[in-house]
């Protein structure tokens, strides 16, 4: 029975596969409308420059070019700037100054994609170069080149934010037996979903209605943003329909509103015909929002016996030219204060300063709740630095310090209330799975022979499920999410959600939640998302929030239906509702299993034979504002071998033990972990976007921005423990991001561990072969 239903805990094969394996997915670039025009964007080659003149005449002379839009054209419409979520504003097109390389300068609209590209090539811009500042630390020094002349405040400081007990922490450090300090730079990276961003905007002049197909993780929020930004042009919320069709990966990169979207909408409104804009990969990497770029200085105080006591962290956050962070929390550094991780620090203090530089604006999370990876990497590196200082085994030191299972719910010294956890169990399982003790022996023997292997651990605590309205909002809108469930007379179900899958398999997993709650086979449940005309209002999918928030809404909406269904079942069974129980996916008269009704029978009755005085139909809506976030966790162990000649790092094994509470679909969860681990591997060893002193992007295409292939990616080994969330309706915590959060520290710790006997304490990621080889050479152990 259970298998047939496909409820919670079953590895149900994905429903969405049917179209994707046939090439029948519908992504934004697949949308083609009659008379549609194509837009392409001219971008600045310079990182900071005054625009003296934009000559569009040659572009306009190309047959097929319909129009060219510059910043000056947007001024009368008041669309040359747009607000960001961070109370900053961002240029749509510049009117006089460009602030970063690849910034949008003009848009060309043409009858064909190829002609639009020719038009871009034909635009001549006369730039006067201005001094460039790319380093946020230099940017915050007095006399630094001013990035934002438009602001009243004439420096590059955006905001200061601090949390925790400064004085108490300082005292704890002053009194501590042992203090370790480590500076870490977590470089700029880019999500680089294989599908880039794009939009088809179609404005119907007669109806005054705008329809957009758009690569967005949050269609409803986008509709509201459009209404707020362009409301003065008559685009009211009921006249805007945002459709987020199939999305080719998001990872946070498809949360923001990029200028290209606004330009395409503007072009469609002005021309009255549909306009398509699909960015190419160079535009995607170079101009779309980045992640990370945190300069961190972290200190940890402990007793001689290794008991951790206090944590003090100072950080400079590089936000580029505009603070356009896709950060729905109330804190400018997102959830960075989860940095106390899996350890019960008595005192801690974190301060972050935001800085403007001549770099593209941002940032976004890159598959984590905002700034959680930065936090997890820092604490898990710092624990290893402490272990080295004390001469302790890093696993043992973690075990000694973990917040014990009995302490949950646990409130951290920085104010987060952890829902549940059993950190020791996860680490023990990881150690047993990988054979930790034997690996340590092997390492000791190898060291004697001059061979370099390392073992790295990361026992991270995540924080996901944005989120409770006390911590989160977007433009004041609380971060609830929604589900609307309709059971049709024949017992088939339509579920509509406010979130939007980008590959997570919502059509399957949300069907399973409903199947579990209603006893209707998952095959009979259709899940729809991403169309603001039909779906209930929701804030979208990112920060691993779909399961914690929309999953909660779905379960509760289904339970509302079950409550009503129970009354109908009682009516059909001629029993008192109090005598009806939900058992084996059926309504039964208590103690009389033969007297039962299936949900299908009840559904039919809901339209044909419901009790007198009851409303017909069987449907429910729930808007769920979670009482708390959820705190998935895990322990990862990585084994690396280093090549003493080339400095290459080879990952031999990687065991990931994750605990994400109740698992809805084990197959999908495992797939999410595989993907997350690979996006943890990527910044640890490969990916980085760098800038030279002129602000030139280094790593702006897939030729130079190195996504790991199947050859660099190890065969991930996974295992799990299950510690349900006590406050979530089905006990689930969310899992999409855990592995990305946890993996980088495990890999970096493994490489440092391989070199620890040489006195190495830290290597900044990405750990390139030349960084390793330099250490080998300096210590005389290179081949």
């Amino acid at each position, binding site marked *: 029975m259970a298998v047939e239903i496909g409820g919670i805990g079953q590895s149900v094969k994905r429903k969405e596969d049917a179209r*994707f394996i*046939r090439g029948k997915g519908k992504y934004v670039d*697949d949308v083609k409308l009659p008379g549609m025009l194509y837009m392409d964007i001219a971008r600045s080659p310079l990182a900071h420059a005054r625009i003296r003149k934009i000559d569009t005449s040659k572009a306009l002379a190309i047959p097929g070019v319909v129009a060219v839009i510059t910043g000056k054209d947007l001024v009368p419409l008041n669309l040359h700037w747009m607000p960001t979520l961070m109370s900053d504003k961002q240029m749509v097109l510049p009117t006089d100054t460009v602030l970063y390389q690849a910034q949008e300068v003009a848009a060309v609209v043409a009858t064909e994609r190829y002609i639009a590209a020719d038009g871009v090539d034909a635009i001549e811009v006369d730039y006067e170069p201005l001094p460039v500042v790319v380093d946020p630390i230099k940017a915050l020094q007095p006399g630094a080149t001013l990035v934002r002349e438009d602001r009243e405040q004439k420096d590059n400081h955006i905001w200061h934010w601090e949390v925790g007990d400064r004085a108490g922490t300082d005292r704890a450090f002053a009194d501590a037996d042992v203090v370790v300090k480590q500076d870490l730079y977590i470089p700029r990276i880019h999500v680089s979903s*294989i599908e880039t961003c794009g939009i088809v905007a179609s404005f119907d002049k007669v109806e005054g209605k705008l329809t957009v197909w758009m690569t967005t993780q949050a269609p409803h929020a986008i509709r509201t943003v459009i209404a707020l930004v362009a409301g003065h042009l008559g685009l009211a919320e009921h006249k805007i329909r945002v459709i987020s069709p199939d999305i080719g990966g998001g990872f946070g990169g498809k949360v923001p509103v990029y200028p290209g979207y606004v330009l395409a909408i503007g072009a469609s409104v002005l021309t009255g015909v549909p306009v398509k804009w699909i960015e190419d990969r160079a535009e995607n990497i170079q101009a779309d929002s980045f992640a990370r770029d945190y300069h961190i200085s972290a200190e940890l105080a402990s007793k001689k016996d290794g008991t951790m006591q206090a944590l003090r962290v100072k950080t400079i956050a590089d936000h580029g030219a505009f603070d356009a962070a896709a950060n729905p929390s109330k804190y400018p550094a997102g959830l960075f204060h989860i940095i106390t991780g899996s350890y019960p620090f008595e005192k801690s203090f974190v301060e972050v300063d935001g800085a403007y530089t001549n770099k593209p604006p941002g940032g976004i999370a890159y598959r984590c709740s905002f700034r959680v990876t930065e936090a997890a990497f820092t604490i898990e590196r710092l624990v290893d630095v402490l272990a080295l200082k004390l001469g302790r085994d890093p696993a043992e030191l973690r075990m000694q310090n973990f917040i014990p299972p009995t302490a949950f719910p646990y409130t951290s010294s920085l104010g987060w209330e952890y829902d549940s956890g059993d950190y020791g169990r996860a680490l023990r399982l990881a150690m047993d799975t990988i054979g930790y003790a034997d690996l340590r022996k092997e390492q000791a023997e190898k060291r004697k022979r001059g061979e370099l292997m390392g073992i790295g651990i990361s026992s991270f605590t995540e924080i996901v499920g944005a989120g409770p309205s006390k911590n989160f909002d977007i433009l004041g809108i609380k971060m609830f999410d929604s589900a609307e469930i309709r059971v049709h007379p024949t017992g088939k179900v339509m579920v509509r959600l406010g979130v939007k899958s980008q590959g997570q398999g919502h059509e399957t997993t949300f069907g399973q939640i409903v199947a579990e709650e209603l006893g209707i086979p998952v095959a009979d449940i259709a899940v729809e998302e991403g169309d603001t005309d039909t779906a209930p209002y929701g804030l979208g999918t990112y920060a691993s929030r779909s399961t914690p928030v929309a999953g909660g809404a779905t379960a509760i909406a289904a339970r509302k239906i079950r409550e009503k269904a129970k009354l109908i079942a009682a009516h059909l069974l001629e029993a008192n509702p109090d005598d009806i129980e939900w058992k084996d996916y059926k309504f039964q008269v208590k103690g009389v299993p033969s007297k039962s009704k299936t949900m299908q029978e009840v559904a039919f009755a809901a339209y044909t034979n419901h009790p007198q005085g009851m409303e017909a139909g069987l449907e429910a809506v729930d808007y769920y504002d979670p009482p708390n976030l959820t705190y998935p966790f895990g322990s990862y162990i990585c084994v690396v071998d280093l090549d003493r000649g080339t400095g290459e790092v080879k990952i031999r094994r990687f065991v990931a033990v994750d605990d994400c509470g109740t698992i809805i679909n084990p197959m999908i969860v495992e797939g999410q972990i*595989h993907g*997350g681990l690979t996006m943890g591997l990527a910044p640890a060893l490969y990916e980085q976007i760098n800038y030279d002193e002129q602000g030139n992007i280094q790593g702006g295409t897939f030729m130079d921005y190195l996504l790991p292939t*199947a050859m660099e990616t190890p065969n991930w080994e996974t295992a799990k423990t299950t510690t349900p969330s006590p406050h979530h309706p089905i006990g689930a915590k969310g899992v999409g991001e855990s592995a990305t959060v946890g993996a980088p520290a495990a890999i970096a710790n493994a490489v440092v561990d391989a070199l620890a006997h040489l006195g190495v304490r830290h290597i900044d990621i990405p750990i390139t072969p030349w960084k390793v080889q330099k250490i080998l050479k300096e210590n005389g152990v290179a081949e």
Partner: protein
Amino acid sequence: MAVATAPTTSRGQRTHKIHVTVNGVPHDVEVEARTLLVHFLRENLNMTGTHIGCDTTNCGACTVLLNGRAVKSCTVFAVQADQATVATVEGLEKDGKLHPIQEGFHQEHGLQCGFCTAGMMMTAVAFLATNPKPTELQIREAISGNLCRCTGYVNIVKSIDHAARVMRETAEGKA
């Protein structure tokens, strides 16, 4: 917005007549020389199952079979496919029956967002034709020109192995 005064339709570029057989269906079309094969498939033939991911011959989302070989169709001009056969993801299912590679990706959860999937499957189809009994490492090598951001490759490798097994069994059954 500066609006063009020039005529908005005509193009000055010389076009070339090509004859291409895509998934068994012949097409005679005129294309500009610079038209990339992937745009020809997507725009001229409305076959949108083949995707564009990187533009620089790195990601393999646009992989199709050109005369039976897996190539990145964003780095081939449509004119080069004159007189050639092209196979795309849309041609994998035959008579309502999924190709074993499609079954493999579904059974082993070899896809998430689905964007790289067509390219991965086309690469795998060509690969399995030359290597029906691959090792895990050989599968990984074979797909090393296709990038996936969602799956971490583990299940893609399993999917291809699954298909190889099914295809071998089918071949044995016929023999």
